[in-house]
């Protein structure tokens, strides 16, 4: 005992307060043993101090709105007695911290969202709290929410609508994250070389197919404000993907979204019969390297995404993207070369969504099931080559194939002339441009200039909101503004694993400190839609629709100015304490 105590002292470089007091108490104990008990009781308590937290977010180069939101939220929280720091991390590092390592207090960022509300299944189901990716980065676990999420998967039609409403209401009340707004998506496009912009959503593959090229086979030039596309084209690398548009163009999936509905794509057809999905593939499809695409590749894809180690490791290591999609599939059987049977535990709607994952070539990805290795470094268990590879050059089967890239300059795709959409008798939008050159241009202002000066045909990512008024006011000849609906949303996410964010009452008060309407005006210049629930407009139930204020967590204050007295009362009602100097005190 004596030895271990001195060992502690040596490590900490001197006797700690506790050991000093203990030693002093020991001396006194001869005289007064009751006093020692009091000392023990007084000393063995955790300190109370001001609540301090760090908001993790992106620098303005990556996401201008997030840093502005983070700073506004910071000043509100500081006003109510919380000490707040902001940590900016690059796009990749932000996602690595938040989504892979869950190393954050709260974060402000954009979720890619989805047309179907089933994305909430992987986003907040407790089953995914341990996994990397957009699946439950919050570490949220609530039995009621779990049950409701499972319920909405199993039903269809009106029944599903009701189930989804239940999910959304419960999530809004529990507030694992605070939805802020969905930014309006505006893009700038030249119409003298290409027409048909915006017929399909520009974040999906169809946005780049079926365009009317004035000069057939010409190169489509996109000005892309995110350099990550030129560095990595791995469909599973969550750090590098936003919407995954390029992945959709390079890879095929069995289904594709057309006007919010899942329609056959690589699948010729499917039938759904009480938990069994029978899929027929298009015949004679090949990957870009000439290898035939068969039902085996499809089956491999689903098995691989469910466990990227393919059973080689002590425990499964599922994909950080498409997690909810593949979780819907229980079993997959290859019937013939071009026919498969998927057993699902879900209703038809969720099963169709499960068909939208990119089909990976088995001959390329099988060897990526091995553990990644860096000489001299011990990597996290379950880190496979599949999640860390940059996947260049890409071998997919999609309408465009990888041609060339230069990091932070461009990535160029070439039309894949053997793609099934180019066949006669296939009535689907086809690749009309001979090639797509995605040039990297890190700011909206210079991307706009490239389009205006005919050096680019389109700004492929939505314009930052501060330039939207300028382009809406005037554009050059043959330049049009394309507006598209948005389902990606800005939000404030809590790390529910850490106190005091573990406490739903605390989160609910913070939710009431976020003034969405005002943030939309001040940060987005009004070019966003304040939201109280993270799903697309069509899925938003009446109870959660924005009606001038948040129907669940109305702002404690007015016009961005927080009512500090009301906020303090709310925190105190939730069991938190304030010091005389107005700081919020918590046990550390």
């Amino acid at each position: 005992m004596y030895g271990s105590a001195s060992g502690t002292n040596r490590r900490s470089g001197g006797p700690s307060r506790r050991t000093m007091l203990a030693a002093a108490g020991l001396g006194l104990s001869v005289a007064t043993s009751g006093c020692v008990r009091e000392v023990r009781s007084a000393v063995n308590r955790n300190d109370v101090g001001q609540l301090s937290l760090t908001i993790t977010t992106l620098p303005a180069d990556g996401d201008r709105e997030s840093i502005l939101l983070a700073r506004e939220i910071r000043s509100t929280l500081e006003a109510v007695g919380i000490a707040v720091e902001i940590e900016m991390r690059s796009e990749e590092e932000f996602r690595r911290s938040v989504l892979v390592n869950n190393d954050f207090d709260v974060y402000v960022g954009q979720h890619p969202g989805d047309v179907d509300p089933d994305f909430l299944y992987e986003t907040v189901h407790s089953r995914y709290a341990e996994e990397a990716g957009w699946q439950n980065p919050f570490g949220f676990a609530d039995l009621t929410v779990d049950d409701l999420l499972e319920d909405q998967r199993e039903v269809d039609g009106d029944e599903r609508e009701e189930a989804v409403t239940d999910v959304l209401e419960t999530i809004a009340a529990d507030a694992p994250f605070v939805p802020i707004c969905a930014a309006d998506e505006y893009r700038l496009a030249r119409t003298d070389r290409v027409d048909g912009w915006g017929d399909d959503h520009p974040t999906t593959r169809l946005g780049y197919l079926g365009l009317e090229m004035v000069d057939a086979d010409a190169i489509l030039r996109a000005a892309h404000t995110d350099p990550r596309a030129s560095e990595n084209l791995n469909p599973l690398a969550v750090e590098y993907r936003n919407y995954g548009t390029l992945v959709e163009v390079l890879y095929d999936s069995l289904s594709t979204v057309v006007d919010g509905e899942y329609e056959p794509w690589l699948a010729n057809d499917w039938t759904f019969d009480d938990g069994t999905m029978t899929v027929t593939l298009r015949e004679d499809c090949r990957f870009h390297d000439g290898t035939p695409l068969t039902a085996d590749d499809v089956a491999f894809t689903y098995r691989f995404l469910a466990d990227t180690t393919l059973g080689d490791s002590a425990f499964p290591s599922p994909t950080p993207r498409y997690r909810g999609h593949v979780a819907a599939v229980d079993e997959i059987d290859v019937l013939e070369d071009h026919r498969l049977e998927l057993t699902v535990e879900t209703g038809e709607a969720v099963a169709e969504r499960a068909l939208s994952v990119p089909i990976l070539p088995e001959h390329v990805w099988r060897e990526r099931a091995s553990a990644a290795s860096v000489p001299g470094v011990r990597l996290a268990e379950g880190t496979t080559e599949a999640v860390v590879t940059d996947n260049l050059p890409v071998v997919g089967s999609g309408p465009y194939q990888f041609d060339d890239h230069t990091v932070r300059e461009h990535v160029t795709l070439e039309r894949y002339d053997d793609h099934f959409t180019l066949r006669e008798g296939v009535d689907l939008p086809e690749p009309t441009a001979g090639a797509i050159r995605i040039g990297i241009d890190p700011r909206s202002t210079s991307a706009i200039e490239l389009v205006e000066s005919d050096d680019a045909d389109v700004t492929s990512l939505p314009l930052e909101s501060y330039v939207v008024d300028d382009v809406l006011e005037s554009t050059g000849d043959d330049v049009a503004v394309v507006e598209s609906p948005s389902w990606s949303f800005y939000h404030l996410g809590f790390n529910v694993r850490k106190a005091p964010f573990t406490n739903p009452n605390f989160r609910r008060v913070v939710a009431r400190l976020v003034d969405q309407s005002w943030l939309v005006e001040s940060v987005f210049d009004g070019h966003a839609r304040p939201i109280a629930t993270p799903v697309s407009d069509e899925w938003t139930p009446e109870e959660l629709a924005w009606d001038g204020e948040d129907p669940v967590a109305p702002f404690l204050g007015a016009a961005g100015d927080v009512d500090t007295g009301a906020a303090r009362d709310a925190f105190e009602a939730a069991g938190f304490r304030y010091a005389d100097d107005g700081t919020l005190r918590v046990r550390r």
Partner: protein
Amino acid sequence: MLLQVLLQLTVVVSLMILFGVGVVVGRRRLRETRLEWRTRVRAAAPITAVLAGVLLFNSVARDLSYDVAWLVDWNLTWPIYDLEGQFILWLQSYATPWATAYFSFIYIYGYVFLLVFPLVAYFALSNTRPMRELLTAYALNYALGWLLYATIVAYGPRNMLPEVVALLYDTYPQYQHLTRQVNRNTNVFPSLHTSLAATVTFLAWRTREAYPIWNVVAAVLGVSVAISTMYLGIHWVIDVVAGIVLAYVSVVLAGHLVGRWSLRSLRGGR
């Protein structure tokens, strides 16, 4: 677009240098240079090779420093912002279109002129020591700067306070293409713009007897470059101060190093 900007830059800076040679260097020194240029080139050749090596390494390893810095993950942005707070906002509150135009011009054209002109001017001196010191100091700036960039992650004001700053890129988006070739956005501590400009200013003071006019011009340009980096929202005050310190260290070190080794002494000396 990049080519167009580069061409414009080359033409403007060349004209500035021609003008500077006429005013600052003078005909007598040019005549001497025509006679002695061989020995001067020989004197400057070793350190020029070193500088070329450092620059080459820099251009190849720029992305490396970015990745290494994120591996080290020592993020100084918040401490810097917390320490100096709103100075940049205060500075920008005095922004006028003319000031923006002036400082944008200084940041791009003035800076390149400030770095290139002394190479020409010192080449025209029969004493080659200033030229060798300048080249050594440039090499030291880049080498030490790279080491700092590879250990520290720091974003500039325009990334933290985008609502008011980023004047350069929003007013003149074409320069984005130019500076993007040279900088990664996490490399703001220290300000290499400031350190190189201050290096030239310090050395101009040392050579004030040979080039009294240049001493004044370099001081004005050096101060303008330092202010421009802050005014345009690219650097924090702390980056600029660190840049000046880096310049001072480089100049002092260059003074010690130059003349210590020469090719002649390496060959055994005579």
